[in-house]
């Protein structure tokens, strides 16, 4: 989801559709939402992501009007909604349990909200039929909820909440009960509906893949707090805490002491405040050695390590080439930090990290797919020796669990472009893992 113009959440001029201002919600002496502020903009597909009991449903229920904040204000379209009852809000909620009316047919379920608005006759019929078409439920209009399948019930619930064309649609784990394939289909359906109707969606899920797929922005929650609110790629590539890194996808964590690196005349590749941009991850780059690097290469390394082009053959998986072996030793990219993580081991070089971390203990967090694995020492800046202890075959990818010499476990993921029998790395092999100097992030907490 690459935004070409300035995204609404980055534009200080845009007025938010929803605004939580220092909202706290307590149940007795239990604090479910702890003094949180949040802005959601018109047309967004906003995902609330977090473990069970972190307060996602509570946030939604406050928006729908079923719970009142204990402290703070919620504004919808600039208006404080604290005194507005649920039936007076331009908000519709699709309940996790669907909450269909069992005594009404599919048709009447969808018409329910429209009738309360006073719609009738031709206008009512037209709108209901439109919703039935949208959710492909025309054939089942006359059935009662107990006469249709779980997935169909979910569509009816969706149609019912969409029918009134609310400004804001709240979806509380709408796809939780569906199998993977139907869930993916419906995710795309939801995105289509969102695009064609322009409704603002807030979706609750504890499935991180779902959040990454559908959302324009994701809020990761933990125990009543919004830990990070950002676009999916930033959440994934530049999590702001170990919690977020760990919650979204697989990650290996290496803790060590940071030392700021002497800045050189060579600018670090990533100058954008230490966050790898999505673009950088997407476009393959050929390493361009600077003058010093070229000289070093020609005079010192070439006789010892062989010509540069040969390095390509050293990594086992060609798919990993671009990402893992971008900065070779010759380049010596400057800036960032070196993380001393084990005695007698080379430090990890993270050129995208903030040099201000100097002297602090940090956790270096890196995704398995950013790590290459090879039998021979790769020509990479960050290369460490280890032994394969486990291989998880997942079909399209395999995850190698490598234990480093100091006992630390690292996951390296490699896409299976070759058949299993032809793969050269197996259990108990001594291997090298390597990654580029911008592949991971250094996190303080």
């Amino acid at each position, binding site marked *: 989801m690459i935004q070409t113009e300035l995204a609404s959440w980055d534009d200080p001029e845009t007025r938010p559709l929803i605004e939580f201002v220092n909202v706290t919600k307590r149940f007795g002496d239990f604090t479910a939402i702890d003094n949180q502020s949040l802005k959601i903009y018109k047309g967004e597909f906003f995902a609330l992501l977090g473990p069970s009991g972190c307060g996602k449903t509570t946030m939604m229920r406050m928006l729908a009007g079923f719970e009142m904040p204990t402290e703070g204000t919620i504004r919808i379209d600039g208006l404080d909604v604290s005194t507005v009852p649920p039936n007076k809000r331009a908000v519709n909620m699709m309940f996790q349990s669907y*909450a269909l009316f*069992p005594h009404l047919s599919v048709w009447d379920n969808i018409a329910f909200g429209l009738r*309360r608005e006073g719609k009738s006759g031709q206008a009512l019929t037209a709108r209901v039929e439109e919703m039935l078409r949208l959710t492909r439920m025309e054939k089942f209009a006359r059935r009662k909820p107990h006469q249709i399948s779980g997935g169909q019930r979910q569509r009816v619930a969706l149609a019912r909440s969409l029918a*009134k064309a609310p400004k804001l649609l709240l979806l509380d784990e709408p796809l939780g009960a569906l199998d993977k394939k139907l869930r993916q289909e419906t995710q795309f359906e939801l995105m289509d509906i969102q695009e064609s109707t322009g409704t603002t969606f807030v979706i609750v899920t504890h499935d991180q893949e779902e959040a990454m797929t559908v959302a324009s922005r994701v809020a990761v929650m933990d125990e009543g707090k919004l830990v990070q609110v950002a676009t999916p790629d930033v959440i994934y590539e530049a999590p702001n805490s170990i919690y977020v890194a760990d919650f979204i996808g697989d990650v290996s964590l290496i803790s060590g002491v940071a030392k700021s690196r002497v800045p050189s005349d060579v600018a670090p590749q990533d100058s954008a405040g230490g966050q790898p941009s999505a673009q950088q991850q997407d476009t393959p780059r050929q390493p361009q050695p600077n003058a010093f690097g070229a000289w070093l290469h020609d005079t010192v390394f070439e006789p010892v390590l062989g010509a540069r082009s040969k390095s390509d053959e050293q990594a086992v998986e060609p798919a990993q080439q671009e990402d893992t072996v971008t900065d070779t030793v010759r380049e010596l990219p400057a800036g960032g930090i070196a993380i001393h993580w084990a005695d007698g081991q080379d430090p990890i070089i993270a050129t995208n990290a903030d040099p201000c971390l100097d002297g602090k203990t940090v956790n270096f967090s890196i995704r398995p797919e950013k790590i290459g694995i090879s039998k021979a020492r790769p020509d990479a800046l960050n290369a460490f020796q280890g032994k394969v202890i486990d291989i998880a075959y997942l079909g399209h990818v395999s995850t190698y669990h490598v234990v480093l010499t100091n006992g630390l476990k690292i996951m390296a993921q490699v896409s299976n472009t070759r058949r299993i029998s032809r793969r050269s790395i197996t259990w108990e092999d001594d291997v090298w893992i390597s990654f580029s100097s911008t592949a991971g992030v250094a996190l303080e907490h």
Partner: protein
Amino acid sequence: MRRASLILVPYLWLLALFAVPFVIVLKISLSDIAIAMPPYAPNWEPSDGVAAFREFLSGLDFENYVWLSEDALYWKSALSSLKIAVISTFLTLLLAFPIAYGIANASTDWRPVLLMLVILPFWTSFLIRVYSWMGILSNTGLLNQFLMWTGVINDPLQIINTDIAVYIGIVYTYLPFMILPIYAALDRLDMSILEAAQDLGCTRITAFWLVTIPLAKQGIIAGCFLVFIPALGEYVIPYLLGGSNTLMIGKVLMNEFSANRDWPVASAVAIILLLILVVPIVLFQRNEQRLREVGA
């Protein structure tokens, strides 16, 4: 073979306890009154032989039913029974619904206690409870004493031996049969359905009429039948609490049977009562059937 004999057990049970007595009552209703032991004729024993059986059959007739249709007493008592059953069912519903609603919305700690209180009267004999109402409602009873003590009235109210006392007795006796099915229906009702109704534009009151009531409908219908069916044939309550002019078919039946010792007419009344009751019982079964289908 074993399965067949298993199925046979309930059928034998029904045959012995329902079909056989029904045939006997039907037979008596077709007989004539006799001053004998038993007090009707004709009678037939298997030892009498087949020829005697034919003679016995020719002795049976519908005379008693003709008699019932000619005497206005029986029509009036049947209609009055219907009226009392309908009104008391309605009154029971009015009282039971708020109670069931209150229990269904009580906190989970309180619910078992409240349900227990609803069933508690069953721990005492029905007769004793009706006798207690005599003690409460009589002219010198607790109610009148209390009202006179507070000064609301100067002379005791005549409640006992009127239809009002019968209504009170029936409503009191059958209240649990109305509360329990309504409570069961309301308890099944998912709170999020009511929230969904509000989310779609209902106020609390419209949500009650459009969602709560329709979803409690099956329970309400079941409760009404459970009260209406026994109330229609009720004998003890009108006998003990009602007056001499409270006409109910059960009372008439008992009168024919014990006071007049007219077993054939009493049996004919019983058959008529049964025929009247078949309609609501079948409707009740239909409702239960639908309930099971929806619940599945």
